[in-house]
């Protein structure tokens, strides 16, 4: 019985994580692709007009140098909060903490999960 419960719990956790990643992809499409690109490569439709180029989220080396907490902070509080460009906006009023966690999950998928 215990084993069944454990398996069910793991399955439920996995489903939540999967849903969060999907939500992350959806939020990324709405809020991030305009600058970071539909492929996450930093070449969005606004990039050509920017004095500082948006981060390439598919760059595993660059992205691995950032912790999840840093990614959360820069999304919530903007580029200035980590001494980066003001062109990275403050999204904390548009997105909930759960939304931002989902986005961080999506960033990890973009940078570091090769299909």
């Amino acid at each position: 019985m215990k084993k069944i419960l454990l398996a069910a719990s793991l399955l439920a956790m996995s489903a939540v994580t999967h849903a969060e990643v999907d939500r992350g992809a959806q939020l990324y499409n709405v809020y991030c692709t305009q600058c970071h690109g539909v492929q996450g490569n930093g070449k969005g439709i606004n990039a050509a007009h920017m004095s500082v180029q948006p981060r390439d989220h598919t760059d595993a080396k660059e992205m691995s140098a950032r912790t999840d907490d840093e990614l959360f902070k820069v999304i919530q509080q903007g580029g200035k909060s980590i001494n980066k460009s003001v062109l990275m906006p403050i999204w904390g009023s548009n997105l909930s903490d759960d939304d931002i966690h989902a986005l961080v999950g999506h960033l990890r998928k973009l940078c570091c999960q090769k299909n």
Partner: protein
Amino acid sequence: MKHLFSLGAAAMLAAGAPLAAHADAAGDVQQQCGACHALKHDYATPAIQERVERKAPPLDFAGNKFQRAWLASWLQNPTRIRPAGVFPPAHVKNGPDGDAVDATGLAKHPAVPAAQAEAMADYLMTLKPFDDLIKAETYQPGTIAERMGKMNFGKFKGCDGCHQDAPNSGGVSGPELYTAWKRLQPAFISSYIGNPVAWDPHTMMPKGDANADAVHKLANYLKVIGEK
């Protein structure tokens, strides 16, 4: 049935068919505009997918947002305000230097005959669910040196990442702002810059950290470039 009727009206509009003047402006707006534009604020409650599927900017707070004269004039001779459409990620093509706007899928807004446009504008200006936000505004239009305003708009606040302050100058995902002063009410400009989420929870415009004074400086810059 109503939906089919709206779609039919939209198809007529898209084909550029002349529109018969409608005796009832409210019904006319509902019929001609409602297929693409939200006329009630109920888009604010569903999930974010609503933003992906949005066909046109909401008009439910048109009376708090637009300048009536601009609205009536624009309806008769519509021009593109959003270079990449209302949902930019849907209008992207991959180019050698990265993403580019794919203009082929951008719908053209139909032109409306003068009398009908005037009646529609009159009705749209009655839609004012956010009088409280407007009343809370303290903005009094002033001026700013254009050079200083441009630096503030670009370098200090990063607005030019998404918005153009002159034709072909600035980002393309947001509406162009060089005509903003003519089309938008000053109090709306200030209120929306200060807290866009209060107007539209699914807005793609971030709420920055600008205080009221800084917001007013940005609004003054839009006034300066809009009155040139």
